[in-house]
């Protein structure tokens, strides 16, 4: 080891993990050819959950903004898709445009909502969701709670639809993961993590707190909108109360809190755990929901770093090259890492 310490971003583990990850994404692209119909459907749902988890985790875990109203963007993403498809645009293109639309709404709201703090912000976002729900209900296309269907999808055969949904969700997931990863690796990402750890200190050092938060908020809105659009493609019917329900936030909270707030790996892990639990217990009705709430509560109180946080704490394992490490120098120990607060 040289006497001069060097700054590295990758660890051996992260090299492996990222390579495996990219390979997995590529392999998953072959899904419709390899797996049966049921598996393809399930994986599509999983991809949507991952998007929701990663985005909510980024918002809460990195920007420190707990929103109980992300269902606003989830519902808007679906609504815009329905509207655009009704207007005649090609269905799968509408997904992307609808997500962008949700992102734009997020951008607009951010100027205002981000002035709220803590619990006020949380409930304030819920009010926004309720308002969005009400406004969407006024649209004659939607006809209140009767809802509408994505009729344009009928143009596809069910196999093609299943495969297209799968690929759209896979692409959406890859895009979301990529965007969040890129964000975290960038200077903005360091700024955001600084804000998470100590907003006042970050501001004192020159971090543009408001701009950074706005970026994450807008990205999260885009992500939730994308998830909503994709969900509509799989469910084909749009009933506002199903999309604007705070239940979606309950799922997002569970995934983020159990997986590990503020960790990229934790978000994915949380989505996998949620997916597994839903597969096993989803049919148990309300006890399932009680379990979700209770688990979130317990984790929030006793295991704030989540499952991944516990793993990371024990093993020092970091699967993603976010942050910096000091290697070498007279003291061979790894001196500092910028991803986690003390």
């Amino acid at each position, binding site marked *: 080891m040289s006497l001069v310490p060097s700054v590295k971003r990758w660890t051996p583990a992260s090299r492996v993990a990222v390579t495996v990850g990219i390979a997995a994404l590529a392999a998953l692209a072959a899904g419709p050819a390899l797996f049966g119909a049921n598996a393809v459907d399930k994986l599509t749902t999983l991809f949507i959950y991952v998007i929701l988890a990663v985005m909510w985790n980024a918002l809460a875990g990195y920007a420190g903004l707990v929103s109980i109203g992300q269902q606003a963007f989830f519902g808007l993403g679906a609504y815009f898709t329905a509207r655009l498809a009704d207007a005649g645009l090609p269905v799968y293109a509408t997904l992307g445009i609808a997500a962008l639309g949700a992102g734009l709404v997020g951008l607009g709201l951010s100027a205002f909502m981000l002035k709220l703090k803590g619990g006020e912000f949380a409930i304030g976002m819920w009010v926004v969701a309720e308002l969005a729900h*009400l406004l969407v209900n006024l649209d004659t296309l939607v006809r209140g709670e009767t809802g509408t269907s994505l009729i344009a999808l009928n143009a596809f055969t069910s196999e093609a639809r299943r495969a297209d949904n799968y690929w759209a969700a896979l692409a959406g997931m890859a895009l979301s993961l990529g965007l969040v990863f890129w964000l975290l690796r960038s200077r903005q990402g360091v700024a955001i993590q600084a804000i998470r750890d100590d907003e006042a200190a970050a501001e004192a050092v020159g971090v543009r707190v408001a701009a950074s938060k706005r970026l994450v908020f807008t990205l999260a809105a885009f992500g939730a909108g994308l998830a909503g659009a994709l969900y509509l493609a799989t469910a084909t019917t749009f009933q506002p109360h199903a999309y604007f329900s705070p239940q979606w936030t309950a799922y997002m909270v569970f995934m983020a809190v159990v997986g590990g707030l503020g960790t990229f790996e934790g978000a994915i892990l949380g989505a996998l755990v949620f997916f597994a639990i839903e597969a096993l217990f989803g049919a148990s009705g309300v006890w399932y929901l009680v379990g979700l709430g209770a688990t979130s509560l317990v984790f929030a109180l006793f295991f704030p770093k989540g499952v991944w946080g516990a793993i990371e704490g024990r093993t020092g394992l970091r699967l993603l090259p976010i942050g910096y490490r000091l290697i070498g120098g007279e003291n061979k120990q790894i001196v500092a890492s910028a991803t986690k607060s003390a």
Partner: protein
Amino acid sequence: MILLNQILQGALLGGYYALVACGLSFMFSVMRVINLAHGSLAVLAGYALYVLADRFGLSPFTGMLIVAPGMAALGWALQRFVLERASRAGLLAPVLATFGLSIVIDNLMFERFGADTRSLAPFVDDLAYASWALTDDIAIGKLALMTFAAAVIVLGGIQLFLTRTSYGRAIRATAEDADTVGLIGVNPRVANALAAAIALASVSLAGLFLGLRATFDPYSGGAQLIFAFEATVIGGAGSLWGTLIGGIVLGVAQSLGALISPQGFFLLGHGVFLAVLFARLAFDDFGARVRSALAGGRA
């Protein structure tokens, strides 16, 4: 005249909102925690009163003699075992924990009572429907007036408690500086637990009037939380009387909106809330900018 009646109804409705908001606002100003399970707890009280009325024939008012202390005890436990821990576990923990709690409470109630809506109105003869007609167009509901009076009494009572009693002083001091308060012999954990007990007792009262004036189901908590929050914010968080004003403004906005359409009720309510919030934030921003300009032009 019809307009005047709507405004009056809205103002009386504001009494209910102030009552629901009271506990939320109180808990926030004392413990700096926004309890997302607040609405669910009000509904829980409503169900408890329903069971006492349905099974044991206790009038809801009599039932309060059991439910209010019960909810106070629950508040104590909530503070000691959940909120205290959550405040130590990080900035996000209280919001996440209370949200998880609300999910647990809502769904346990669903498990026990199902999706059917319930009401306490059948157990109080015709109180829920009785009214005094002032003119052809204007009528004041007895229940609405009673609710408003209850709100005033509760808010006033808590205000007096805080300013005139030693326990109230202890709670106020703990809210300001929990570390220093220990130095002069006040146990901050007890002070906060007492405040939580009081807050939840007021929540149980809100549950009573919710059940009397309307129907509720296991998932009604979310709406109550939102109304409580809106009333608190419109009135200015941290002021108990402000909560009454906030409730009235919300109620009037909703009632006027109802004249336009059924959705108008909610739309105008949310709209006024956002407008007031926006105005307040812009004002604060503006004020801050003016202050810094006066201080010498530093950005």
